[in-house]
């Protein structure tokens, strides 16, 4: 049977009847039942949040190779959109999820379109600046809507009437991992589409990409907008989980962590992102016992990681997966 099918045709359909996918989803389903401990389920939840954020940054940094060290800014927009609209107008979270995504996307479009032409490190500092501007503005409580340093309190749980109320660790766990699952599916599809290829071309050689008919500016913006929208979703879920959003959750340091997630895992590699997110979110918990030495170890670990796996722990494997030739299949080939 033809499981290792890289190009367009019908991967999407295949996933449904593919036993790998079934095992994976089973694993997801079983985890909270196997490990009943709420703490681990919460850790797994935040692992999911970081995975989602990592995937969102991966679009910008991994696929298109744009340095973005202010990505948490987008998540902040999403989180605060949810927090503010929910607390002051009581709009349910599930309604706010797409709204937050759109808000973050629009924000991303507005701030990045004037600077999208910047190269490498200049883009990098501008995104840092963008992230800091967001954070500082939130702290300064413009029009008294962001609650300043205290943030916004008392966000509802996501719920659909009384049918479904996500109010405990297990439900939140499923909530985030379903979101991650769908995102992964979508991104796998994108990677194998002309859009994914266009992104990679830009990363590989911007001029050749332009010369191959790719509208570089458009696809860069698309990446930012898409990445921001995903980050917005993550922020929104994050807000409803903690029931509070406050500026310190969206610091420059956090953006750096996302950057590390993508590079630890391997640029543009989806399983890589899972590993990276696991490293970033589990490490501090596992090393709790080291108390104040823990970040010390973490720093050293980052260096070692890059020393021994500069390409990431699980870089994207290109071409390793063989496609059966359409020509051969359709008998048009001389070979």
């Amino acid at each position, binding site marked *: 049977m033809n499981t290792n099918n890289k190009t367009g045709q019908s991967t999407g359909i295949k996933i449904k009847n593919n036993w790998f996918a079934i095992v994976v989803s089973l*694993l997801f389903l079983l985890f909270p039942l196997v490990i009943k401990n709420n703490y*681990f389920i919460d850790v797994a939840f935040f692992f999911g949040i970081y995975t989602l954020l990592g995937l969102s940054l991966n679009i910008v940094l991994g696929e298109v190779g744009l340095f973005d060290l202010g990505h948490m800014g987008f998540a902040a927009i999403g989180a605060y959109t949810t927090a503010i609209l929910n607390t002051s107008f009581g709009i349910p979270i599930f309604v706010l999820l797409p709204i937050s995504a759109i808000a973050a996307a629009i924000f991303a479009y507005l701030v990045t379109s004037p600077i999208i032409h910047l190269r490498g490190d200049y883009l990098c500092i501008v995104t840092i600046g963008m992230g800091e501007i967001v954070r500082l503005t939130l702290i300064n409580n413009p029009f008294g809507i962001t609650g300043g*340093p205290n943030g916004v309190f008392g966000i509802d749980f996501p719920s659909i009437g009384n049918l479904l109320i996500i109010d405990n660790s297990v439900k939140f766990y499923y909530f985030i991992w379903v979101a991650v699952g769908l995102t992964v599916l979508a991104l*796998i599809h994108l990677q194998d589409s002309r859009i994914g290829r266009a992104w990679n071309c830009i990363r590989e050689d911007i001029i050749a990409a332009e010369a191959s008919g790719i509208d570089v500016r458009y696809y860069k913006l698309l990446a930012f907008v898409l990445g921001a929208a995903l980050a917005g979703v993550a922020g929104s879920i994050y807000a409803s989980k903690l029931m509070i959003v406050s500026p310190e959750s969206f610091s420059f340091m956090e953006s750096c962590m996302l950057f590390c997630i993508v590079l630890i895992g391997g640029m543009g590699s989806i399983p890589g992102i899972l590993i990276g997110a696991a490293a970033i979110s*589990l490490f*501090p918990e596992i090393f709790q016992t080291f*108390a*104040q030495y823990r970040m010390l170890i973490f720093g050293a670990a980052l260096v070692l990681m890059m020393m021994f796996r500069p390409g990431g722990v699980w870089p994207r494997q290109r071409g390793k*997966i063989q496609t059966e030739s359409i020509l051969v299949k359709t008998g048009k080939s001389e070979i």
Partner: protein
Amino acid sequence: MKRIKNIFIVLVIVTLCLSVNALAQKDPVVIGLQGPLTGSAAVEGEMAKQCVETAALMINEKGGILDGRMIEIELVDDAAQPRAGALAAMKLVSMREVVASIATYGSSVTQPASDIYEKFNKVNIAYGATVTGLSERGLNYFFRTCGRTDTQGIFFAEEVVPYFGASRVAILHDNTSFALGLAEEARKALLDAGEAELVYFDAITPGESDYTVPLTRLRETNPEVFYFTGYFSEAGLIIRQAREIGIDAVFVGGDAAINEDFIRIAGLEYAAGCYMTQEALIQYFTNPEAMEFKEKYQATYGTLPSSPWSVYAGDALMVLAEAIDKTGSTDSDVLVDYLKNEMEEFPSITGPIGFDEKGDRVGTGINLYVVNDDGSYSIVER
């Protein structure tokens, strides 16, 4: 497909590494302590840990509680981050089976943590979360040994300002949850009192070094009293720079503003003659508990804790131990009932402690202190 397979493998690995850690161990009377051991507020967490351990020592040396059971502290770092705070709380309740928890420093971290403790019916006592709203959410298991910003703000407006007979007051805060809260309560109280005029109200960014700009602005409004509600390490810089650009208004600090570090940073020449509205300044307490605490703390760490919050963490442990011992129970509801109804004037490190229905501490005596020329403090008698 290959990629799906990879993801699958990754997940297996992760699950394994989670499950391995799942083997948690138990212990008789375990009290949780949550504090920022890393990150920007690390200094507070460090001292809170030291204070609580000292308090635990005091109790255990007397043979522990519940005839002979020792108190064990389960320490978890929350890095002054809401996310880490929530995780820390979850860890304490669902892994360490703590009887109750001392949590935590910083209002925006305490918020999600207290929500979790509430959900799992665990008594949690905050030691550095003074935002008024925290205890207004109808939580049953939330307590705090630290005061609320509003009491201190009112104290400043109604006691301190008249004491100096000031008619022009300037307030500066540093946009941290605590300082902003205090500053706003003080402003509110000032307007209510209507005696003095608030000529200046602004924020600085903590962690920076040069505050001459806001100070120059402040100078232009020539106030008579200058109230800084932020933390000691900025306060030290601010008093220096204020005096150097020729502000001679009376300097009053909030209760996070003035301590040894403040004096070291400001230099005695500038620190002397500064005032502060202060709740619990440990070096100033003379009650036996405080003396014993100071003696033990000094013995272990050489100095005294430089922030009031950490001492409140010590208080929290004393209070919990007392409640458990008296009720002979570790059941949260019994403890809540005792703390809210039975416990009155319990002699703790920072003086008598009791709690009202909201879990706020009653009877915290706020005072106005002055820094003497030799760097010691004394209460200003009004």
